[in-house]
């Protein structure tokens, strides 16, 4: 069994999805944690210093490369998997099995993923690009991200797109979280139940946290 055989098998491909997925979840935790600093209600001081650390320190910047690699792998593998899986049916059914046996979002991971991707592109053009280009992509001074958020989230459609993007992410995770553990081989029913519940909680908390950010700015909950 060469590595190539392992990672090109259907189970191997799924493993890649699972591992990168979990990795992205870890990133989300940090990302959400840091962003939550906006609610310190100190005019963005705490948030900006955190962002400064992430942007100007070499360790997170190296991790960032890993993050991108992971994300890219996840996206490319995800799209390839989705395309390949869709090609396996041949002739479509006249009547669909529908929701009788599975949740709609578990069957829509590809679509949800694309939505997330589109959202990510917007999101990165809003924040990451301006910031990094301001830094000259090195460890230079970054812009006042708090102010940037305030400015961005003053427009209604942007807020709506962000909310939708986060909802897609939420549903993606509602299936993805527990699925990743099954992919990695957790078969004990007791743990599976636990992980499923945990997954739902996590998806809800993460979605709410991210949704609240643009809303907080837009609705002026922050001063």
């Amino acid at each position, binding site marked *: 069994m060469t590595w190539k055989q392992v990672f090109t098998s259907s*189970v191997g491909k799924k493993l890649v999805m699972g591992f990168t997925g979990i990795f992205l979840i870890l990133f989300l935790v940090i990302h959400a944690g840091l962003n939550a600093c906006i609610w310190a209600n100190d005019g963005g001081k705490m948030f900006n210093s955190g962002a400064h650390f992430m942007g100007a320190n070499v360790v997170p910047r190296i991790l960032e490369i890993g993050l991108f690699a992971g994300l890219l792998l996840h996206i490319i593998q995800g799209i390839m998997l989705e395309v390949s899986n869709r090609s396996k049916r041949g002739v479509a059914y006249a009547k669909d099995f*529908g929701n009788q046996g*599975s*949740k709609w979002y578990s069957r829509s991971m590809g679509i949800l993923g694309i939505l997330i991707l589109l959202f990510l592109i917007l999101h990165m053009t809003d924040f990451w690009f301006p910031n990094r280009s301001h830094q000259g992509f090195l460890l230079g001074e970054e812009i006042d991200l708090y102010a940037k958020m305030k400015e961005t989230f003053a427009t209604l459609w942007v807020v709506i797109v962000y909310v939708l993007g986060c909802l897609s992410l939420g549903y993606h995770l509602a299936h993805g979280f527990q*699925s990743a553990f099954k992919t*990695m*081989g957790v078969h004990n029913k007791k743990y599976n139940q636990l992980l499923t519940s945990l997954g739902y909680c996590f998806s809800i908390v993460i979605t709410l946290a991210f949704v609240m950010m643009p809303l907080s700015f837009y609705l002026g909950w922050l001063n």
Partner: protein
Amino acid sequence: MEHYNMNLTVKVWRQKNSKDKGGFVSYPVKDISSEMSFLEMIDVLNEQLIVDGAEPIAFDHDCREGICGQCSLYINGKPHGPWMANTTCQLHMRAFKDGDTIVVEPWRAGAFPVIKDLMVDRSAFDRIIQAGGYISVNTGNAVDGNSLPINKDHADASFAAAMCIGCGACVAACKNSSAMLFLSAKVAHLALLPQGEPERKSRVLNMVAQMDKEGFGACTNTGACEATCPKEISISNIARLNKEYIFSSLTAEK
């Protein structure tokens, strides 16, 4: 149980052979008793077709008691029809009511090409078993049956997985046309027994490779397979297969 009669419209996929394009044809059927099985209803329809000089509908079936796994109809959007934990042949007409239209399709999957009408070719499953779904023990090699005590929980779990009838409903239900539930049932059946230990690694690796070669999709844990499986094979077997696969691919020397 109250019995009643009903008139129905049955919309069936007709396809002359594997090369034909095929399409739906609707047939009215009258005076169907609620006590009939679904296949007996098709029998009645076929009798009518034969008498009318038409060709009867070809479909797979044999034991008609839910164990051989040969029957395979996709009825109103669900493999084996509306009842849970049930095969097509065990479905009875009391599941329907007068005036219903019933849509009947073959299993749909690239790896299960249609042979005729509602019959598909499931020989891919046999080839998956050939890839390692067995214990290599020649006749006459065995030790006394009781020389090998087996933990009852493991024996029971192994049996629960071994109940798979190889019908392919899991593939038919899965949006990815994945055969993982079928595959995992066999892997779990043998991995849970001490007899399965010697070939544990090669078995799962080879069987997965064969499944991929046959053109089934990759599992994304949606759970549709478990919901439609007539033998209620648990999806946790798939996670077990994943574990076996990871462990085996990491530790296999080749």
